[in-house]
């Protein structure tokens, strides 16, 4: 039997993660423990959730440049309202998810470029976050703190959470019929439209689902850091996009992979630790992280080309 394209798509991110992990273990054998792994991957959980949210937006051929600001906003809500008066906090989150759906509708109806709309929204979310927490502070709700710091037997929480996220999103996006429609819009809008579906509804639903995962990302982040700041997750915008691409997704065409996206998020987190272990000064780390990204993407390009040559034969 031939190996399907989607499997090939997953091989490179999985291989690069394994390679990075092996390098980290080689340099710092003590990382090969329960606590070590937990420390290495702790911060990957919120990034993985944000990456999944970004992946949903990218599945319908859009791009969300407000992801970082929105996760920061959610973190601020978690550290203030959700902690002080849970009902109000939940209501705010519901409102934020509805706002995401509305953004999707506006982008679809007015045929606006998603980049512009979400870039504008990033200032709105950022402003709201500053209004709530002008200076770093707040406190994590007890249950979020408990969830993120719990110690399940044998496997650290960070790994368990990543696997659970990967499996649930894989089921929703790749196996369920709703996921088929979402990816169908990315693949060929006209064909979905001609089959009698309401693309506007699908898009609104996709954006709402992305908003939901971004909310979870904010809660998970505060559960780890115990307090929040209006700029806490600004890096997430680019990290989430890089994670999706690293995990085998594409900018257009509805080609996404939830498992790959989670692996991509893990790889990005690990790359940071790897560079620290290499004793590369923080000044150079961003550049070195970029270099790792380029190498992995270069590998993918090469593989795609081989695949194409195979097909044209």
């Amino acid at each position, binding site marked *: 039997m031939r190996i*399907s394209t989607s499997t090939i798509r997953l091989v490179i991110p999985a291989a690069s993660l394994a390679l990075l992990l092996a390098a980290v273990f080689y340099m710092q054998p003590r990382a090969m423990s329960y606590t070590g792994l937990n420390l290495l991957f702790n911060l990957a959980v919120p990034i993985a959730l944000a990456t999944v949210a970004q992946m949903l937006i990218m599945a319908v051929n859009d791009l969300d440049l407000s992801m970082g600001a929105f996760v920061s906003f959610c973190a601020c809500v978690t550290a203030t309202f959700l902690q002080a008066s849970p009902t109000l906090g939940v209501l705010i989150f519901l409102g934020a998810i509805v706002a995401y759906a509305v953004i999707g509708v506006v982008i679809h109806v007015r045929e606006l470029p998603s980049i512009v709309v979400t870039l504008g929204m990033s200032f709105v979310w950022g402003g709201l976050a500053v209004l709530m927490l002008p200076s770093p502070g707040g406190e994590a709700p007890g249950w979020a703190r408990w969830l993120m710091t719990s110690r399940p037997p044998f496997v650290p929480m960070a790994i368990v959470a990543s696997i659970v996220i990967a499996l649930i999103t894989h089921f929703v996006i790749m196996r369920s019929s709703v996921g088929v*429609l979402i990816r169908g819009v990315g693949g060929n809008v006209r064909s*979905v*439209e001609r089959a009698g579906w309401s693309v506007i509804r699908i898009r609104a639903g996709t954006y709402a689902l992305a908003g939901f995962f971004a909310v979870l990302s904010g809660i998970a982040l505060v559960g780890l850091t115990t307090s929040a700041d209006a700029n806490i997750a600004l890096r997430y915008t680019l990290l989430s996009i890089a994670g999706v691409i690293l995990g085998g997704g594409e900018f257009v065409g*509805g080609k996404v992979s939830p498992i790959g996206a989670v692996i991509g998020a893990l790889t990005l987190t690990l790359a940071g630790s790897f560079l620290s272990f290499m004793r590369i000064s923080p000044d150079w780390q961003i550049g070195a992280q970029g270099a790792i990204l380029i190498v992995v993407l270069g590998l993918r390009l090469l593989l795609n080309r081989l695949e194409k040559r195979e*097909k044209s034969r």
Partner: protein
Amino acid sequence: MNEVITRQEVVAARGIKVTFGAVKALDGADLVIHAGECVGLVGHNGAGKSTIVNAINGGLTPHAGEISYGGVRAQHGISTARANGVRCVFQELSLCPNLTVNENARIMHAELAGWNWRSRAGALVKLQLQEIFPGHGIDCDSTIDDLSIAERQMVEIAVSFAGLNQKPKLVILDEPTSSLDAGLAAQLMAYIRRFVGEGGSVLLISHILGEILSTSDRIVVMKDGRVVADRSASEFSKRSLVEAMGNVAREKEWQRAGDKRNGAPVLAMPARRGQGLAFEAHRGEMIGLAGLGGHGQTETLLDLYLSRNSNWWPARRKEIAFVAGDRSLNGIFPLWSILKNLSIASLGDFSARTIVDRDREGALGNGWKKRIEIRTPDMENRILSLSGGNQQKVLFARALATSARIVLMDDPMRGVDVGTKQEVYDILRLEAAGGRTFIWYSTEMDEIRLCDRVYVFREGAIVAELAGDEITEKNVLEASFSGGEAA
């Protein structure tokens, strides 16, 4: 005939009128399809075939006329058409390339919901594929991207004919055999007969007349947005079909200069993919690329262009200029002035040390403004202030103002009014007499008849070369519509 009329109507479109800007795509066309018949629909480019199909399947709302499903006038729209059992297989593949066969079936069939839909979709498609194309060998779990073009077309056809709760009543097939080989095409035609025998109806659009004649019960011929013939298939032959599509009354002879084929060709290309005839162009010739739309003419123009220009690095001296067909997509710079739009291709000729010489640019603009009569008070006005025809003239001037000796034209006269067309034709003849070579893809017969020599395209290859007096509508049509042997 009487027997056909008493049958139940599945879809009836009466007096449909659709206009796109100045172009009348449909001018009061009637099309009635009854249960249990296969209707063949033929016509040349722009005859309105695709437009009437889009009106029937709900994708396009006609400006006048009425459409009824099953004899009942209903609200217009895609969901209404689908609810009445109308399915459509489009000419360009309309599956989602990133999804598997099963998942595409799910998108086409909303009733495939609930638990276990994946395996039910798989069973449905597999059964239908087996019924239409026995021994197909397509894995329903593979992604559409991984399938060959023929396999994709087979999947799309099977998905459209499949019905979970109810079979479709009318399936519209727009060039369904364009990428199937002869064996698969025969299987499909046999299935269409069986489907029709069981009471379904099919609207078949194809450029292979043999297929149309052997499979249809009734043939509708369209021309210029109207139905010009609607008779039972047995009353047609290949010859009479071609004659019905053409327009004999409008044959008009042009004053053609003698054969200009002397010396070495200025541009030549071997046969595409090893099929059909080779292409060559000589100095001062006006060469037409004819045939039905989308049969490789634009690709040939691009290949010709790239054969002289690198894809990576702009050549210093451009030998070839290109006039784009889709103005808004790849022709004009909408935010620039008329003058800048005109001079962009020849900036290198009148700039010194990379600085543009404004005076020479202005002189060039005024010269061309007079020569081709661009109707504007000031060349500094925005390009969008011009009418479509005048915008197109600016694009012609852009190409002609360069020093290029060869001009490629990708159906540039789409949606241009008749007066402007005549003016541009005159300029082209003048330039051709001056030694420029024009290679002109056009979907309009009048323009093809202006050319010195014509290559007719079918399925990506040149199938006929016509020169001088051989260039008649009838000959071009005959070459574009193959008999039964092709594909």
